[in-house]
Structure formats: structure tokens, C-alpha cells
């Protein structure tokens, strides 16, 4: 009993000491930075469409450009600062995916190019790809099953 009591007291102590994260301010910053990144994406998308490219190609070009910009900013160590300010605002857009690959690639250079850069690159992006691709394969299989029974899955 006393141990739980101590843990609880410790938790209260930690809660009291740790600064209250200013959630409203964080959300506001995440909102406008995230919105801005998406708006830049929309502008690239519209430029592609204006030049007569189809939707799929435009989407891929937009992703590549945003990933490129984010990689460049990560290389200059500017992305970390944006990330600190914007939180999820720069993490959730595709820029965060890019940063999650580029940042460890740079950081683990000292461990060599194969097991350092090559392997550590996927510390965060690996799980994203594993679950993203697995989910998409399941979606495809489910679609196939429903489709052969001529029940359309929207």
C-alpha cells in the first residue's frame, strides 16, 4: 500500500513540477503551419493541373516537391526549429515523413553508410511503411472479395 502511495505522491509531484503544456497555443501553431503546408501543396497541385498533367502525376509531383523542400530544410537544420514551433503542424503533413527519414540519416552518418545511414533511416519511416502498406494490401484483398461477390465497397 505504501508503495502505491509513494508512486502516487511522486506522480503528483511530477505533475506539479512539469510545465503545463500550453495546448491551445500548440494547437493554434499546428493549425496554421499544417494548413499552410497543405496550401502550398494545393498550389503545386493546381500548377500541375494547369499544365495539363493528370491527377495521379500531379499528386506524386506534389509529394516529391514537399518531401524535397522538407529534406532540404532538415539538411540546413531549419526543420527542427519549425518542428519545435509547430509540433504536429509539420509532423503530420508528408514533410514529417520526409523529416523522419532524412533526420536519422544525417544523425547516424557516424555509424557508417550501411548500418548507420541505410538502416537508421527507417527508424520511424519503417513502421509507417509496414503498417501503411500492410493496410493497403488488406484493403485490396477485402475489395477483391467484396467485388467478386458483386457487392461494391463504395
Amino acid at each position, binding site marked *: 500500500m505504501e508503495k502505491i502511495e509513494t508512486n502516487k505522491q511522486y506522480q503528483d509531484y511530477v505533475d506539479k513540477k512539469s510545465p503545463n503544456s500550453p495546448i491551445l497555443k500548440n494547437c493554434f501553431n499546428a493549425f496554421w503551419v499544417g494548413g499552410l503546408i497543405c496550401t502550398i501543396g494545393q498550389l503545386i497541385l493546381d500548377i500541375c493541373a494547369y499544365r495539363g498533367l493528370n491527377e495521379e502525376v500531379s499528386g506524386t509531383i506534389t509529394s516529391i516537391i514537399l518531401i524535397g523542400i522538407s529534406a532540404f530544410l532538415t539538411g540546413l537544420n531549419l526543420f527542427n526549429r519549425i518542428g519545435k514551433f509547430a509540433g504536429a503542424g509539420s509532423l503530420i*503533413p508528408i514533410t514529417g515523413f520526409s523529416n523522419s527519414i532524412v533526420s536519422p540519416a544525417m544523425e547516424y552518418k557516424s555509424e557508417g553508410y550501411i548500418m548507420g545511414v541505410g538502416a537508421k533511416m527507417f527508424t520511424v519511416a519503417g513502421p509507417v511503411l509496414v503498417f501503411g502498406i500492410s493496410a493497403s494490401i488488406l484493403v485490396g484483398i477485402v475489395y477483391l472479395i467484396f467485388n467478386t461477390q458483386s457487392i461494391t465497397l463504395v
Partner: protein
Amino acid sequence: MDMFFQSLNIMDYVWCFVVGGLICVIGQILIDKTKITSARILVLFVTLGAILGGLGVYQYLVDFAGAGATVPITGFGYNLAKGAIKGVQEYGLLGAFIGGTRAAAGGISAAIFFGYIASLIAKPKMKKQ
């Protein structure tokens, strides 16, 4: 270029900004209110995007908000799922395996390539700690 700016619809951009921003706010609330790490949030969002994409729900959001829905990582999942469905339509079961990754290939390859280039250029001690 004037013609281009005239062709833009301002409301498209407003909804793109608002929806994209709100998706990020959901992520921010998860970061602040729970103890989920950012890697788990990315995984959660990409999986959610793939499921909603597979159910056809996310398509409505994409039609409504454009890049506001496709640029966030949920859009990456949506893109994978959409590719997988398109693959199944073209190749059957095989398409489920090639469609998703093919749709996202550009982004994945770009991120890997740029990451490698950045590591070549970067000085290892650059990271501020």
C-alpha cells in the same frame, strides 16, 4: 501566369487550409493529451488513412479539401489504399500487392534518395543537443 491565378478558386484554398490544419490539430491534441509518441501517431494516421480510403470515406474529404486531405500522412495511407484498389481492378489479387506501393512509389523513393543525399552532405556534429 495571370491566367493561372484567375483559374484558382479561393474557397478551395480556404477549405484546404482549414482541413489540413484541423488534421494537424488532431495530431497535436494526441501529442499533448496522451503519451503517444510521434512515431506511433504517424503509424496511427497512415493506417487510419488507408482504412478510411478503403471504405471510400476519405475520398469525400479529398474531393472537398484537395491537398488539405492528401498532404497530411493520412493522405499517404489513402493513396496506398486507393492504389491497391486500382491494382485489384487491373490485375486481381496481384494488384493488391503492387498497386499500393506503386501509387506511393514516387514519395517513398524521393524521401529515401533525399535522405541519402542529405547524409552525404551533412556534417555528423551538426545536430544541436
